């Protein structure tokens, strides 16, 4: 178990270094940082002085080390466009994105898992067919289109829910939350559904196909042959075995949710990290892009790690393999 954990943590560190390398290469070689920072009338001498000051003439490895060291201390430099500390800008916007992602992940699981179980067990009922068709529509509709449709129906036609922004937020320490005010919660509804719908259909289809797969296994046949009740077979045996891969994928999806928030935030003018990242892509504001990449990479790695550990907790086979190695 310990060896397994150490191996996984080691792997995670390697992934992080690769992500850092990509971010650094972006940061350093896409566009000249000096050109981005100075005006046209700057003299070559001034430029050279700035290069030295920024350490751009140092060996690449030194620069890479400095980049990683800075990133570890949450220092990603200054935005070309906004001339502000990137870390500060991201820090201010992180709560909005995280709250949105969390709400949509909860929505996706609470609706997706029961739908998946139902369609897996009653594969031929009309409701299952409806769910499946619905899920295909959910996968086929791009996120932004779902958002626009929701806005059109609930904000433009019925005018019951807001179409942009976070509503009223409350500052709790460094964290600005929209979960404590009515308008904040109301503002969360449409974006959360928009963001969560794709994950929901994904979870539903995953649970369904896993359920169908498990129902065909010998141990389910044997459980039936032992005369166990339908409930015990379906939920005790089948669902538990289904949940192993579902936990993995759902967990991994949490990272995707945060990344997909870029789109939802654009549709709903949600003041989060995704919107900031998108603006930085449009303006080729490399420090923000690099920082966002590092941050998302870090989140993914951490989520992967947690999911793996959860996996171990659920599946005894892995526990022992880990022990053996």
């Amino acid at each position, binding site marked *: 178990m310990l060896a397994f954990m150490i191996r996984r943590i080691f792997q995670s560190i390697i992934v992080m270094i690769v992500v850092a390398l990509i971010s650094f290469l972006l940061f350093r070689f896409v566009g000249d940082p000096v050109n981005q920072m100075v005006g046209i009338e700057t003299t070559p001498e001034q430029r050279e002085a700035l290069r030295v000051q920024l350490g751009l003439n140092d060996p690449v490895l030194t620069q890479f080390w400095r980049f990683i060291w800075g990133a570890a201390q949450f220092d990603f430099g200054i935005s070309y466009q906004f001339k502000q500390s990137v870390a500060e800008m991201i820090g201010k916007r992180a709560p909005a994105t995280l709250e949105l992602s969390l709400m949509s992940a909860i929505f996706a699981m609470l609706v997706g898992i029961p739908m998946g179980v139902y369609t897996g067990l009653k594969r031929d009922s009309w409701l299952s067919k409806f769910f499946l068709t619905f899920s295909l529509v959910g996968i086929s509709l791009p996120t932004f289109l779902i958002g626009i449709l929701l806005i059109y129906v609930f904000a433009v036609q019925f005018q019951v829910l807001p179409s942009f922004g976070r509503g009223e937020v409350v500052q709790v320490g460094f964290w600005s939350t929209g979960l404590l005010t009515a308008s904040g919660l109301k503002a969360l509804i449409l974006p959360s559904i928009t963001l969560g719908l794709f994950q929901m259909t994904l979870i539903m289809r995953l649970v369904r196909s896993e359920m169908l797969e498990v129902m065909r*296994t*010998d*141990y389910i*046949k*044997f*459980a*039936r*042959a*032992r*005369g*166990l*009740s*339908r409930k*015990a077979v379906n939920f*005790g*045996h089948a669902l*538990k*075995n289904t949940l*192993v891969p579902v936990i993995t994928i759902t967990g991994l999806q949490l990272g995707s949710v945060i990344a997909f928030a870029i789109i939802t935030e654009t549709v709903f003018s949600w003041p989060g990290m995704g919107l900031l990242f998108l603006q930085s892509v449009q303006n080729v504001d490399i420090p923000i892009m690099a920082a966002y990449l590092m941050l998302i990479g870090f989140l993914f790695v951490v989520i992967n790690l947690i999911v793996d550990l959860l996996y171990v907790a*659920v*599946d*005894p*086979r892995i526990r*022992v393999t880990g022990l053996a190695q």
Partner: protein
Amino acid sequence: MSQPLLQIRDLVIEFPTRRALLRAVDQISFDIEAGEVLGVVGESGAGKSLTGAAIIGLLEPPGRIAGGEIIFAGQRIDNLDHDQMRKLRGKRIAMIFQDPLTSLNPLYRVGEQLVETIQTHLPLNNTEARERAIALLDEVGIPAPVTRIDGYPHQFSGGMRQRVVIALALAAEPDLIIADEPTTALDVSVQAQIISLLKNLCKNRGTAVMLITHDMGVIAETADRVAVLYAGQVAEIGKTQDLIKSPKHPYTSGLMSSIPSMESDEDRLIQIPGSMPRLNAIPQGCSFHPRCSKAFGPCTEKRAPLVDVGESRAACWLYAAENGNG
């Protein structure tokens, strides 16, 4: 004599496919007496496993029972609803599958699966059920059952897992165990152990066994009687000794001469030419006739009825013709 424990009468199992309706089991009839071991042999696809699945009510759709009756302890069971059938499963009829590696749920401890099964069928509390589980594990020859009961299936070897599976099958003292190729997936070295374990346990309890296998050696050692299936039909049925010593149906003779024997001084085993027909291409008349060296006139025209031949019963025109029509 009293009524047999299990009676199968003209059982038909069909699979609708888009091209045709396939008859995988075609009017099979046989009985199993209480406490008896009936071997069911045949090549794969002969309908052995389907018959077993049909008895316990676990035919996989789209397969379905299209005719005939299954009577268990005097009660017809092929038309029971799901709940009534479920109460019979495990409690009175148990089943053992081919692959012990996949028969146990990998996420539950062996004990949990045993206790769950015991409590489904018997009114025992947790402690009593656990005690019974330990006793069962002990009985099937698991060493140190008190500690092993808390192990997960993957911590057991294949042979040990099949022992656990047998313990699970015996958990509620059933009257009949359907063992579908219980040793095929095991190492040859442990096959004999498992078979003798199953045989002894059932003998002691008076449990009847329907032993499905394609291994005539296993049958010869274990079964009281044998039913030979060919292309979804019973070719011959009778006492094991009779079938081995004097097989009546040419197919049975072929099967017997393909068993390697210590006493025999023949150098080569005799093979039956050709292979069993596919379900969608079963020949008219006796389904064995294209491979049969003794085929003659009626064989190509009509299916032979199952008739008494000495102590056994065989479905072959060689005998049906002599006895008129049975």
